[in-house]
């Protein structure tokens, strides 16, 4: 009763027929049809997610008004390997079931136009027409019915009730687990992701099975942007009866599930706590070595020159506004950045032009403290009496803003957990946390104004002030030297030479200002000096802004004899699959806390010996210069700032444990012992 009159053209690599199949099990009216492809040997067509090449077949239908056809259904595919690519598709013969329903039993005709791409190594786009004459009331011929029934059997089953699924991201892997009463004999044959760009199609799927749980380990796609909210696909299982079954599965990837302990704790803390923590972190920035000299200078300027309370308030407000503005700016960029993998707290230090700019700024500030030039002298005279107040306010604003930018990496130890919370919170709350951080940073300075009593702490001015002011120039020069060193690590010696030359040029420009652009100089001399120094400083600023990263982060060789390898996703995966515990040290040359931990703890004798004895895999993820894949790994383990220490237990499953940001030998030793003890238990369990 079914006719498929289409004759294959000689050039075609598939012969396509529309055939009639059995009635649908749960319906007395509906019937299965089948779209059958018979392929030339060596050629294949594709599943709904074709994998790394190709695309699935499509069809358009014309049929009587009382009839309707469902979408093409996809039997489980097979892997078709064309190294380095893997496609998902069908070879030899495949039948795609299509659900057909009709009202009325009259005879009718279904016409279809089918398009597909068939590939061997090369691909060819082909299309053909199919036709089926059908009397819904009549049974189907035995042979076609069996062919379609077999195809229907190969369709995935919807997720059985009682299965609990969840997924999480571990390093570059995605770990999916299904809890259900499987029994001992279940085996995982394969997993096919429903969408491209989520998991690496060519990567081997590894799995572990325990009585009530299946765990699949997949590799994240190199084309993946952010982790999706859910991963859907097809899992293929077999059991004692050797019958192959496939199931539609959907794994929610929870925010909590993808992070470490610290993230979870911070995320679950309520928003008020988050804001308080942010404020406290801001307060702490003031005593960090990165910012302290700046604060000292501001306090000094307040005590020395300003006597009127109104002006003090103005400066305090300007300073607070500056620190809030720059903290809000960083927060805004972090929160809104389209690709979270590329940014994190303190990461502006990855840009050599940023480093160079800050170095110029600090160096210039140092020269100013030494009296090479006077800021008020630079403003035109007609600004008159307002000049001093105005420049001071601008200066206070700039100081507040700079304090945050420079202090950010120093603040990470305190702000790290808060930050992870802020980034996982709704945007408004996250933004409020950054503002709160800025407020905290500005608070001590504002205190000097708000509380009259505290003003008594400010020492009286005198000759010592000049000495103290000049002394403060040297921490600034020290900071400049450190920035040049970090910039050299990023740009190589030619970049640092350019930066040093720029520093010289800035010194020259400022010296010209101090020498000739004085309040007492004649207008023409002043103008000439201003122009000349603007040109020289301009050249310096342009050359600094053109600094680009030219060297990869240096490999860290340590003197302890431990073998720290540079982090790559592949190395982490291979160490984990060898069932070793792994410590990943996310670090950067500009991260002082990282260095303190490295020297004080990671290189200490006890830590070195426990790491060696337990043969912990050691990976150093260096973020001195920007690196998308390492930043992605940092987010994946639940970290948001440096340093982050992720310790993967030797047992295969689960998220890494994040160590505290300030390490002590005791913390590391006990964490490593726990992480490796777990593996022994697993080894004892597994022969069961």
């Amino acid at each position, binding site marked *: 009763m079914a006719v498929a009159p289409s004759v294959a053209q000689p050039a075609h690599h598939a012969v396509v027929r529309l055939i009639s199949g059995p009635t649908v099990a749960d319906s007395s009216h509906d019937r299965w049809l089948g779209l059958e492809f018979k392929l030339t040997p060596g050629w294949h067509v594709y599943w709904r997610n*074709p994998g790394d*090449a190709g695309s699935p077949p*499509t069809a358009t239908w014309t049929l009587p008004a009382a009839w309707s056809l469902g979408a093409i259904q996809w039997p489980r595919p097979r892997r078709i390997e064309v190294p380095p690519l893997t496609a998902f598709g069908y070879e030899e013969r495949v039948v795609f079931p299509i659900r057909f329903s009709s009202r009325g039993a009259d005879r009718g005709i279904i016409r279809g136009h089918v398009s597909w791409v068939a590939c061997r190594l*090369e691909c*060819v786009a082909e299309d053909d027409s199919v036709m089926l004459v059908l009397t819904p009331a009549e049974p189907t011929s035995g042979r076609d019915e069996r062919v379609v029934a077999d195809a229907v059997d190969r369709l995935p089953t919807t997720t059985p009730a009682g299965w609990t699924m969840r997924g999480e991201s571990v390093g570059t892997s995605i770990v999916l687990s299904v809890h259900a009463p499987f029994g001992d004999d279940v085996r995982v044959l394969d997993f096919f992701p429903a969408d*491209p760009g989520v998991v690496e199609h060519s990567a081997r799927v590894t799995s572990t099975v325990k009585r009530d749980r299946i765990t699949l380990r997949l590799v994240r796609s190199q084309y993946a*942007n952010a982790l999706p909210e859910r991963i859907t696909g097809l899992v293929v299982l077999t059991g004692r009866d050797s019958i192959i079954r496939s199931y539609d599965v959907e794994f929610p990837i929870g925010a909590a599930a993808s992070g470490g302990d610290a993230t979870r704790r911070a995320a679950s803390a309520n928003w008020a706590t988050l804001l308080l923590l942010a404020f406290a972190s801001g307060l702490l920035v003031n005593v960090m070595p990165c910012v302290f000299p700046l604060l000292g200078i501001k306090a000094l300027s307040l005590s020395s020159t300003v006597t009127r309370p109104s002006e003090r308030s103005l400066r305090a407000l300007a300073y607070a506004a500056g620190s809030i503005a720059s903290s809000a700016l960083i927060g805004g960029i972090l929160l809104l950045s389209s690709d979270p993998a590329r940014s994190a707290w303190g990461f502006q230090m990855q840009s050599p032009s940023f480093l160079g700019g800050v170095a110029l700024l600090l160096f210039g500030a140092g020269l100013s403290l030494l009296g090479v030039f006077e800021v008020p002298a630079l403003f035109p005279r007609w600004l008159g009496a307002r000049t001093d107040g105005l420049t001071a306010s601008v200066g206070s604003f700039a100081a507040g803003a700079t304090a945050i930018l420079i202090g950010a990496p120093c603040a990470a130890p305190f702000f790290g957990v808060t930050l992870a919370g802020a980034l996982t919170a709704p945007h408004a709350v996250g933004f409020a946390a950054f503002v709160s951080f800025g407020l905290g940073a500005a608070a001590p300075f504002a205190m000097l104004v708000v509380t009259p009593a505290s003003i008594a702490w400010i020492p009286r001015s005198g000759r010592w002030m000049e000495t103290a002011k000049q002394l403060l120039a040297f921490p600034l020069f020290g900071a400049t030297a450190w920035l040049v060193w970090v910039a050299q690590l990023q740009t190589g010696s030619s970049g640092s030479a350019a930066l040093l030359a720029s520093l010289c040029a800035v010194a020259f420009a400022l010296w010209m200002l101090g020498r000739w652009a004085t309040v007492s100089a004649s207008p023409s001399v002043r103008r000439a000096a201003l122009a000349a120094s603007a040109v020289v400083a301009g050249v310096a600023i342009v050359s600094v802004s053109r600094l680009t990263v030219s060297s990869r982060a240096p490999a860290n060789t340590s003197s302890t004899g431990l073998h720290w390898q540079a982090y790559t996703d592949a190395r982490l995966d291979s160490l984990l699959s060898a069932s070793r515990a792994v410590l990943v040290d996310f670090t950067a040359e500009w991260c002082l806390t990282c260095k303190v931990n490295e020297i004080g703890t990671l290189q200490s004798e006890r830590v070195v010996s426990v790491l060696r004895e337990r043969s912990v895999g050691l990976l150093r993820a260096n973020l001195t210069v920007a690196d998308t894949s390492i930043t992605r790994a940092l987010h994946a383990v639940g970290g948001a700032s440096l340093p982050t220490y992720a310790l993967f237990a030797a047992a295969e499953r689960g998220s890494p444990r994040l160590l505290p940001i300030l390490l002590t030998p005791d913390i590391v030793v006990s964490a490593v012992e726990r992480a490796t003890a777990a593996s022994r238990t697993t080894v004892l369990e597994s022969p069961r």
Partner: protein
Amino acid sequence: MVQKTFIASLLLATTLGLRRAAAPAIGQPAPDFTITDTRGKTQHLADYRGKWVVLEWFSHACPYTIKQYATGNMQRLQRTYTGQGVVWLSIVSSAPGREGFTTASKANALATEKGAVPSALIRDTAGTVGHLYDARNTPQLFVISPTGLLAYAGAIDDKRTADTADVPKAHNYVAAALDAAIAGKPIVVQLTQPYGCTIQYAEQ
């Protein structure tokens, strides 16, 4: 210097070709290459610093590439963006005897016949440039910033089919990236999984 870079990239490509090549990452320097185009002119990527550069992997026999050329879409993109100072390099990495391979003169004739107007057409028969970028499909496109950093990599659009009717309905990732780049705005989608035919490299 140029020669040294070329030898270095050749060595790199050979080593990488043996294993799965690592794709260059978004925001990282795009690998440099020097190669002769179908008109006999030397194409050195670094010479295009200061301009946006598009690399388009091309195979005249691939249905997914044909979809873009039969509708005139790829030619339109080439005309629009080369008209705005963008450098467009179409690259054929097919090995001799395999799908997409042509001689230089045949390649030029094909381009003329289809009205293609890339800045240059490049035959990469050894697969050197293809492996440097871990290019896998035709079409697959890369957008490189004036400072030489990779700004977009992946599919041409979001309709992953060989159907010409899908071209007008598709969101074109490359046009979106170039429009944003030229307007000085951030590129929203920087990385997608490419789709299309498998590039027919020489056997390893």
